[in-house]
């Protein structure tokens, strides 16, 4: 069957390939009421809710296997270390990395990118070099490079975004130069939902002699990620956006790159031998995991990835496409609502502005109807400035959302119009 046909069919799907009611029942928070109304949670790009098995996995660590990872020889320390390393292997499989040693646990994507900037960046970026990002980056994939470039006397280049909310390969290629040391870009835009052509971008970066970092938190819940097929040198994502706990995430990098990178944070656990004069640092990934590790976070993340595997990422993605298509169709019908961007490939979120109504007011009215959306600048202030808006409303979908919940959004926006008139 052709991909196009399959896509067409999935966009028209009225039900997912899994039992939606049963999946929703696994998320206790979805039964909450807000202002005496059922919660309609459409803020999944900010963070996702947690299924029972993640909640249970975190709690089980505390009940049965909690100790400091990789310290001590007692039985609990053994269980904790084993659980931590099994979680690393789960992340490795999730990203398609070649070995678990290529997975570094971090607090989240922000820390992952800061790690690369501080470690790889400080060792490899020199005065006059360039770092290339795109115009749609989240602050987390902008400010670390700003700071690195300022410290090194390097230049931060920005590949432009077009009016569709896309970054064309031509524009990206034109922004690369022989001085580009690293290209860092989103896999999926947190403002437009654009799926960037990352495989091609990685290839272009490599051809220019640069490494490529893919900022993946908006992609990981919705797309199959295979870092070896992408060919990227770094990939980062956050656990809390894939139904896992907050405070845990992962950085992938190829073994030969990690081996050459100096430590990021220093302290306990990341060393081999320590004297008062010098220390000998451990091999990756331990070299980058200083201090007591977030065991319960890692185990919760592994449980979340298992949950996602059980649903099937393709099944989830196909249902999310149906939800998104319905949302875009409905929003486009509403007079005075302007959708931001029109990317041809889009994942699970849509941002818009309402003529004459500030996003924060819309957010408050929607909340009074039980509907949770994101309002604000979405941590993308330079992009907002270039779009000529200070803030937007963003609705984003997860595998547990229903078509009824999507329909609640236009209904809520009618209420917004009622309150603020024309």
């Amino acid at each position: 069957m052709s991909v196009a046909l399959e896509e067409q069919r999935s966009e028209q799907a009225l039900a997912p390939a899994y039992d939606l009611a049963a999946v929703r029942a696994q998320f206790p928070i979805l039964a909450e009421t807000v202002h005496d109304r059922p919660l309609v949670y459409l803020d999944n790009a900010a963070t996702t809710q947690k299924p029972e098995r993640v909640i249970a996995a975190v709690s089980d660590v505390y009940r049965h296997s909690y100790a400091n990872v990789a310290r001590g020889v007692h039985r609990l320390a053994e269980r904790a270390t084993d659980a931590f390393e099994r979680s690393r292997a789960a992340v490795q499989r999730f990203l398609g990395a070649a070995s678990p040693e290529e997975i570094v646990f971090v607090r989240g994507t922000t820390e992952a990118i800061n790690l690369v900037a501080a470690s790889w960046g400080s060792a490899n970026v020199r005065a006059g070099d360039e770092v290339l990002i795109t115009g749609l980056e989240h602050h987390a994939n902008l400010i670390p490079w700003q700071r690195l470039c300022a410290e090194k006397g390097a230049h931060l280049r920005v590949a432009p975004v077009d009016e569709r909310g896309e970054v064309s390969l031509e524009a990206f290629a034109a922004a690369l130069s022989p001085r580009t040391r690293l290209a860092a870009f989103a896999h999926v835009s947190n403002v437009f939902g654009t799926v960037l052509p990352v495989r091609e971008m990685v290839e272009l970066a490599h051809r220019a002699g640069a490494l490529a970092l893919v900022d993946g938190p908006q992609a990981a819940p919705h797309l199959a990620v295979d870092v070896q097929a992408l060919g990227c040198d770094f990939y980062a994502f956050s656990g809390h956006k894939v139904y896992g706990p907050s405070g845990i995430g992962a950085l992938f990098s190829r073994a030969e790159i990690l081996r050459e990178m100096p430590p990021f944070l220093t302290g306990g656990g990341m060393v081999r031998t320590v004297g008062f004069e010098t220390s000998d640092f451990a091999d990756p990934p331990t070299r980058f995991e200083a201090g007591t590790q977030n065991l319960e976070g890692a185990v919760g993340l592994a449980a979340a990835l298992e949950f996602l595997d059980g649903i099937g990422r393709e099944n989830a993605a196909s249902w999310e496409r149906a939800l998104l298509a319905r949302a875009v169709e409905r929003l486009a019908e509403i007079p005075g609502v302007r959708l931001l961007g029109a990317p041809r490939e889009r994942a699970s979120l849509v941002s818009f502005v309402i003529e004459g109504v500030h996003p924060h007011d819309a957010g408050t009215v929607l909340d009074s109807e039980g509907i949770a959306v994101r309002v604000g600048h979405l941590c993308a202030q330079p992009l907002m400035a270039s779009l000529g808006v200070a803030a937007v409303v963003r609705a984003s979908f997860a595998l547990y959302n229903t078509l009824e919940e999507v329909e609640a959004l236009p209904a809520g926006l009618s209420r917004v119009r009622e309150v603020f008139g024309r």
Partner: protein
Amino acid sequence: MSAAGELSDLYQDLILDHTRKPRNFRELPAANRRAEGYNPLCGDRVSMMLDVAGDTVREVAFQGAGCAISTASASLLTEAVAGKSLEEVRRLVAAFVARVTGGEAPAGSEEVDLGKLEALAGVREYPMRVKCATLPWRALEAALADGEPVVRTE
């Protein structure tokens, strides 16, 4: 309390009127005190301009872009503050901030009559929106303190 009831406590007619037709929304060439309020959370910006003569605020105007609450709050502020002495303005700011944050009015401002500003009291029930209501008032304070040109609420 129904959700609709709560919402209409927040978006009262007086507030919506000031949002749609903000008063004293203009440049004030005679201004001798200015400050900008900025809320990085929502991108709201409000620039307060005051013409102060001796001990009296003669005129107040504002410019900027913000949500219904911050715009109405700024608009109502300009009407409430014009013609008052600096001491009266200070007491009014304290009383207003206490009212919308749900705090105790500090000594000396308990007796202040908020008048139309009372319409903004509904924001107390919306902790995420209180900063919208206080933004222009923080800018006003800064303008009078004459030290910080940009104040932030987050």
